[in-house]
């Protein structure tokens, strides 16, 4: 059942509608104090209303911007809606951002109010308060440690709600006024500003209207037949558009229940307890889970391992066919049933995925092995391609038309075209209203007739008719000899090995391709344990010659597969090294959504890049790092560069690549 209707064009209106029609159904749960606390739609309306009226009493008015900072907790989601009910615009911010990064976004958005999780975030805001002239009030959820703070501009969430509740009692007009305020909201109103942590430069504030998000959400719900019975777990950053649409707007549109985990560390356990039916995650999550599976199974007894391997291999052959409803021999179906009892079912159950009806991977390319693995064991994993600027949905794979290397067909109401330069462009009701306070940039991205430049290079796969994405358009370069060089394409191939966590390929305008690699501490650490390799630190493990040998093998396999592809054969990796530290968002090497910031990395590691191309076999590097507690230090290392032998280009078997 969808909550549709032309009058339901804002999220607060959906809230009031749901409170009426789904009143006693759960709207949110939060594992807190050891058990799942739940709120029905009716209760949630009451909570949000109290907060909203409290905020109004504090002076929040239509058009104000207010920040939301913290992890996924019901009260922060409520704050979004409470503000929206007043016509104010929430600006969710990445909670793990350091104070400095946060200051830029908050100052740019001119936020007047911050709703934050705890003392940690309050401290950050206090630290940069001199740069935030508009900020008048900070509201916190968790009072711990804040007792002795100066409360002249600080107030607890409970107190704000208290103000609202008191007002509701004392002023009989208040309720009607508030409801009138909600009714006054329009679909075309600005609903949220989401700052994208761009891979280059300062982040930009993407403005989305209610219409943008609600139409996209309804289309998505209809596309996958989502209704009020879904259970989802909210664990992705609040500032990411995916979470905003998926844990917030889609939930309000379909009326399903959003569950907030106890802590970020217990997401797997919490997901398992709830048994989510609809999931949305970047490939990294699926990859980590698979790595965990591999690592744990490596410690299992011989017999169990054999059984596991047999059934996984069997599922690899038949699982996807069964999932897609194809006809398979009865024997296969029977054996798959046994496999389901012994392996697939328990496996999905361990990770809380057995009730999944639809799971999406998005944000980046997923390794085909990983993608097929999850589908083979019976989870309906699909790909979608989206952007903040599109209110997420650009393309998605319909049930039964799933391919590991494509991202699907145009989502409902979305038009797509490939520009002459090979860039993917789209037009849809979800197209954003522009970048906040940056009309020049907006005009650059949105054409006069409403098409949006995605910045991604791609093409339509002739066989499946689905979109394929190669790389960021601006990252696609050429080697000196003119060979096409798509760094991400190569990096993804590397990253599909569990031992490789991150890779950076360099080669544009150079003679050949080189790669800097980050090993995966979980996978390689477990390998080290099994093989008696002793190490005291990440750095030591990364420098181990045996680890180098292992990674060299992976690189070699990647080269072989590149040699199979006509246009990529010249871009094989000739030299590589293993980095001495993990690439980290705190050091600006990754974005907060864990994407490479390529330019920054090549600057930072320029001595290494130089060493690649001047023939050195080792390279010295010192880098400044930021520790978890915020203080900085320098680590330096001498890294070994390993030489690889490329494969001759073969006659292409282009059945997939074309």
């Amino acid at each position, binding site marked *: 059942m969808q909550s549709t209707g032309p009058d339901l064009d804002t999220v607060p209106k959906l809230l009031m509608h749901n409170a009426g029609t789904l009143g006693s159904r759960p709207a949110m749960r939060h594992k807190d104090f050891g058990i799942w606390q739940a709120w029905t739609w009716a209760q949630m309306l009451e909570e949000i209303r109290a907060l909203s009226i409290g905020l109004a009493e504090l002076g929040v008015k239509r058009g104000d911007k207010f920040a939301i900072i913290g992890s996924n907790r019901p009260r922060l989601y409520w704050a979004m809606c409470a503000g929206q009910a007043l016509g104010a615009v929430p600006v969710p911010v990445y909670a793990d951002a350091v104070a400095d990064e946060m200051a830029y976004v908050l100052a740019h958005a001119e936020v007047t109010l911050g709703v934050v999780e705890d003392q940690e975030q309050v401290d950050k805001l206090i630290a940069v308060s001199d740069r935030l002239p508009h900020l008048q009030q900070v509201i916190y959820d968790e009072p711990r440690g804040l007792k002795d703070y100066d409360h002249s501009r600080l107030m607890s969430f409970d107190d704000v709600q208290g103000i609202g509740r008191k007002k509701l009692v004392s002023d009989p007009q208040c309720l009607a006024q508030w409801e009138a305020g909600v009714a006054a909201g329009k679909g075309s109103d600005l609903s949220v500003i989401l700052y994208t942590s761009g891979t280059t430069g300062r982040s930009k504030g993407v403005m989305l209207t209610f219409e943008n998000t609600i139409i996209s959400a309804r289309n998505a719900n209809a596309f996958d037949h989502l209704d009020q019975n879904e259970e989802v777990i909210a664990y992705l950053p609040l500032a990411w558009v995916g979470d905003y649409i998926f844990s917030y707007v889609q939930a309000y549109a379909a009326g399903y229940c959003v569950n907030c985990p106890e802590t970020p560390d217990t997401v797997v356990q919490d997901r398992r*307890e709830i048994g989510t039916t609809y999931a949305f995650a970047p490939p990294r999550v699926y990859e980590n889970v698979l790595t965990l*599976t591999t690592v*744990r199974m490596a410690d*299992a007894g011989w017999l*169990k391992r054999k059984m596991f391997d047999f059934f996984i291999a069997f599922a690899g052959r038949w699982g996807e066919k069964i999932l897609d409803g194809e006809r398979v021999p009865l024997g296969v179906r029977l054996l798959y049933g046994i496999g389901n009892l*012994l392996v697939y079912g328990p496996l999905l*159950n361990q990770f809380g*995925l057995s009730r999944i009806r639809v799971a999406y991977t998005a944000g980046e390319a997923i390794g085909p092995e990983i993608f097929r693995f999850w589908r083979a064991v019976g989870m309906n994993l699909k790909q979608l391609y989206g952007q903040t600027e599109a209110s997420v949905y650009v393309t998605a794979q319909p049930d039964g038309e799933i391919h590991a290397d494509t991202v699907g067909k145009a989502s409902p109401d979305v038009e797509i075209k490939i520009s002459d330069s090979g860039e993917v462009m789209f037009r849809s009701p979800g197209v954003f209203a522009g970048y906040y306070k940056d009309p020049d940039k907006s005009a650059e991205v949105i054409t006069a007739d409403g098409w949006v430049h995605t910045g991604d290079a791609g093409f339509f796969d002739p066989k499946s008719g689905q979109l394929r994405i190669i790389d960021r358009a601006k990252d696609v370069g050429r080697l000196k000899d003119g060979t096409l060089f798509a760094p991400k394409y190569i990096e993804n191939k590397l990253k599909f090995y569990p031992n490789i966590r991150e890779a950076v390929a360099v080669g544009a305008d150079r003679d050949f391709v080189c790669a800097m690699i980050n090993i995966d501490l979980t996978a390689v650490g477990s390998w080290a344990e099994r093989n008696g390799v002793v190490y005291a630190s990440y750095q030591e493990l990364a420098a181990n010659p045996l680890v180098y040998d292992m990674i060299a093998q992976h690189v070699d396999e990647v080269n072989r597969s590149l040699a199979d592809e006509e246009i990529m054969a010249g871009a094989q990796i000739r030299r590589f090294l293993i980095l001495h530290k993990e690439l980290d968002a705190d050091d600006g090497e990754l974005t907060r959504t864990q994407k490479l910031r390529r330019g920054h990395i090549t600057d930072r590691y320029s001595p290494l890049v130089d060493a690649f191309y001047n023939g050195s076999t080792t390279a010295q590097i010192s880098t400044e790092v930021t520790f978890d507690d915020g203080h900085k230090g320098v680590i330096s290392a001498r890294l070994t560069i390993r030489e690889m032998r490329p494969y001759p280009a073969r006659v292409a078997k282009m059945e997939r690549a074309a």
Partner: protein
Amino acid sequence: MLYREVGQYKSSYAADMAVFPILQDRIGVAVILLVAFVVLPLVSSNFLLNTVLIPFLIFSLAAIGLNLLTGYTGLLSLGTGAFMGVGAYACLKLTTFFPNVDVIVWILASGFVSAAVGVLFGLPSLRIKGFYLAVATLAAQFFLEWCFIRIPWLYNYSVSGAIEVPLRTFMGVPITGPNATALTRYLIVLSIVVALTWVASNLVHGRIGRMWMSVRDMDLAAELIGIRLFHAKLLAFAVSSFYCGVAGAMMVFLWYGGAEADVFAIDQSFLVLFMVIIGGLGTLIGSFFGAALIYILPIALRTIPSAFGLPIRPAAAEQLTFVIVGALIIMFLVVEPNGLARLWQIGKQKLRVWPFPY
């Protein structure tokens, strides 16, 4: 593997603190109860009921009693047999004085007599612990045993010096004495054992259980969080002896139908202690496992050779049983010092994390 815990979330503390929080476990318990109350009565022969099921249940209850004292509170007792005896003799006296009150009431009431005696012999636990306390309980064992023999009043001055169980009926159905059918007695024993197990489970999962375990794990710290050690220990003695007493009364009234004092000799104490240790200290389910292994194993050892047609002298079979049981005890302790319940837990954990090893 069989455990599918997705979607089993708890939204109240009551649900979270339930004894069986996992759905599959609840189903398992229901199945076991169904089998015990319905299936077994339908399919069991009198032999099976009399020689296997009834004694197994009675020993399980005694083992639970001792487990509350030794496993949960950490007080080693070698007087179980005597406390069982107190229950049996008390029941005899009570039903003699008040023949018209239902004997089931007296079976349960005799537990209170046993509890009182238990408290009396638990008094030294104020000052002593460990093996020293074990010796104190031996005093109880031998003194009470002596009483059972030397005080004719206890066995109603019967010529044989043994308890002779009188016929008692409940709503016209004979439940004790020679006319009571095995099935009736089985169902009564089963009901009492199930009910008392439930009660024991309630106790150990609540404040009192935590209090006992605190005393067991670190008595000094327990005292420093405000627990009166003496009270906690005496309560453990009382509850433990209650269970043993009821088990003893059931043993004579619902199983043997008559008994001499030597039934409650030190051997019986040791037997129950074995059950508790092999089953697993500090677990209720272990008490059942232990009773099954220690009681049923010898029966199996005696019956299996003859079932295969191997001629074996009864005496030799008995001796062989001793050898095997002794060796098994050592072997079990070597393999899993925490008892069968621990093995069970490990197995269950394996099933829960399946297909992973951990």
